[in-house]
């Protein structure tokens, strides 16, 4: 199985580990070898600690050898987006301002995954503070899409997407504020799920926009996503927005969905997201794959109808007011006093000046733009017209969802209007960059769960299909995505990722 380890699903690795067919050291070493071979090209990781990974893998193998009862995830390697705080392991959030910082504690989700026995391979590249859709805003390096290394891997969780698509990790954690799990998953051919807001703890995630940020799985299969989501979900008293309700049953929903029967399921196709009169900026190939996938849902028994959500037209402007406003406040903590970098403290400058110099040199241009925009939107005289108005639009978007749920069980759309674009094509045009989030923003603003599942190729590059569900009904996303995945895999005779040509080496 060694040759297949880096192409395997995490669920298959878990079975092989439990049966003793593979050891965790075997699996971990296979991934470390693959990272050593290909990451100079891909640039997925900001930090890899082979020694620590092999030690953790060895400890799992030793425990298993003594007959200790271990959970299903024990020994399975994993990559974490560098926004997740990890005790003693460098954590930068893609920013120079945190260069060299080794956090003194673990994020709740990192602690849960550690307790489950997963093996941390490393921390993945990202747009600085998760602000971006291409990972080009990282202060450290460019990350390349394994499908075509001249193209972006999406963002902001682009290191996580490239790692999993390129065989440099079996699965990974991303975070999604406006689409940063779903869009990179879509453009690299992965499954990516943004959980219901409040269902995965934000404790220890470096905050960007606190009313929107959610962590979730980025994986090769729908079942893997469900398994990883179950492992990180659940109430956390350390996050005051954490929902105190039982961990949802998701893996079973994925298994049931894979049986392929969607009879009785009511599906709404959102007109405003690529439908008639709203197709500007969408690739024809993306819309064609989307239409074919909607037809596939019908053939599996789903009832499909058009649903209009007029307020979704304003999701992009509302998001790009709300997120920068919250960011301008959240990023005030990076003042060069308690952690991270300090610049200009030569005895001649006072605190204000040192702070301004630290932030000038520590932050990249997109972070600065958003801090300035957020400061503007929150300032007296502008607050009502911008931030206040955006929050009311957020209410309208939530109302559109609530109205839709009277008639349908899930809403669907393309995940992103285009396939992966060429590296550099949008770096000087923030508006063009923001357009990549057009379809993912409504679910973010309303806090509802949404999944992206591969639905074919356009121009030889992956296209994602988005399934949105009511709050706390994440299981519906998994059920529908698993049905689509199973039907498409059966039709093409192999998994989606197995169709990647010119695997980078």
């Amino acid at each position: 199985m060694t040759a297949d380890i880096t192409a395997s699903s995490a669920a298959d690795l878990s079975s092989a580990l439990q049966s003793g067919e593979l050891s965790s050291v075997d699996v971990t070493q296979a991934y470390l070898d693959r990272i050593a071979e290909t990451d100079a090209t891909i640039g997925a990781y900001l930090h890899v600690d082979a020694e620590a990974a092999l030690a953790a893998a060895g400890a799992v193998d030793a425990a298993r050898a003594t007959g200790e009862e271990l959970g299903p995830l024990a020994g399975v390697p994993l990559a974490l987006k560098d926004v997740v705080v990890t005790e003693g392991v460098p954590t930068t959030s893609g920013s120079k301002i945190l260069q060299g910082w080794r956090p003194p504690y673990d994020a709740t989700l990192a602690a849960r995954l550690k307790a489950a026995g997963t093996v941390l391979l490393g921390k993945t590249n990202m747009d600085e503070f998760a602000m971006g859709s291409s990972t080009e805003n990282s202060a450290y390096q460019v990350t390349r899409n394994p499908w075509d290394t001249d193209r972006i891997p999406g963002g902001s969780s682009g290191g996580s997407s490239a790692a999993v698509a390129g065989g440099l990790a079996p699965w990974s954690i991303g975070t999604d504020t406006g689409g940063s799990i779903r869009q990179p998953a879509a453009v690299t051919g992965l499954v990516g799920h943004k959980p219901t807001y409040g269902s995965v703890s934000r404790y220890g995630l470096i905050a960007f926009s606190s009313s929107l940020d959610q962590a979730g799985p980025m994986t090769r299969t729908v079942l893997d996503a469900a398994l990883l989501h179950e492992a990180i979900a659940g109430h956390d008293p350390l996050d005051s927005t954490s929902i105190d309700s039982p961990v949802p049953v998701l893996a079973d929903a994925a298994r049931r969905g894979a049986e392929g029967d969607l009879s009785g399921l009511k599906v709404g196709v959102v007109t405003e997201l690529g439908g008639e009169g709203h197709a500007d900026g969408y690739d024809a190939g993306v819309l064609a794959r989307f239409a074919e996938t909607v037809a596939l849902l019908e053939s599996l028994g789903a009832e499909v109808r058009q649903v209009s959500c007029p307020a979704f037209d304003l999701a992009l402007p509302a998001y790009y007011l709300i997120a920068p406003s919250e960011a301008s406040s959240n990023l005030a903590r990076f003042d060069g006093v308690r952690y991270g970098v300090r610049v200009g403290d030569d005895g001649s400058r006072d605190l204000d000046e040192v702070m301004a110099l630290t932030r000038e040199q520590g932050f990249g241009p997109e972070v600065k733009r958003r801090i300035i925009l957020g400061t503007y939107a929150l300032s007296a005289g502008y607050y009502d017209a911008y931030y206040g108005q955006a929050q009311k639009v957020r209410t309208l978007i939530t109302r559109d969802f609530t109205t839709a749920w009277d008639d349908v069980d899930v809403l669907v759309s393309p995940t992103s209007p285009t396939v992966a674009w060429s590296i550099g094509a949008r770096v000087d045009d923030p508006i063009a960059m923001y357009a990549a989030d057009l379809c993912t923003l409504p679910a973010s603003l309303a806090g509802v769960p949404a999944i992206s599942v591969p639905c074919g190729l356009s121009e030889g590059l992956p296209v994602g299909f988005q399934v949105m569900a009511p709050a706390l009904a994440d299981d519906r996303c998994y059920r529908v995505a698993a049905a689509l995945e199973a039907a498409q895999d059966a039709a093409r005779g192999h998994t989606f990722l197995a169709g990647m040509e010119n695997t980078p080496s």
Partner: protein
Amino acid sequence: MSTPSPKGQLTRDEVAHLAHLSRLAVSDEELDLFAGQLAAVLDAVAQVGKADVADVAPTTHAVPMTNVMRPDVARPSLPRDVVLAGAPAAEDGRFRVPRILGEEA
């Protein structure tokens, strides 16, 4: 921000002022770049003004929760040396900071 400029416009001076409020020592080149880019972004986001929001309450948060309580029990905090190990400068078991008042104070 004493005199609001017309909607959708952000002058170079305003960007400089906002940068100062945000404790960002931006360069002249950045000011030139950001003023143009932010004007375009502001123009795009100003579309929120199109929405009819009479009688619509703002949404601050997707989950309607208020005043989340936990038992008032003291828990150990992180050890001081562990916290200070991550600081850019420490002295006598404390964060060392640049002077906070001007020379003449």
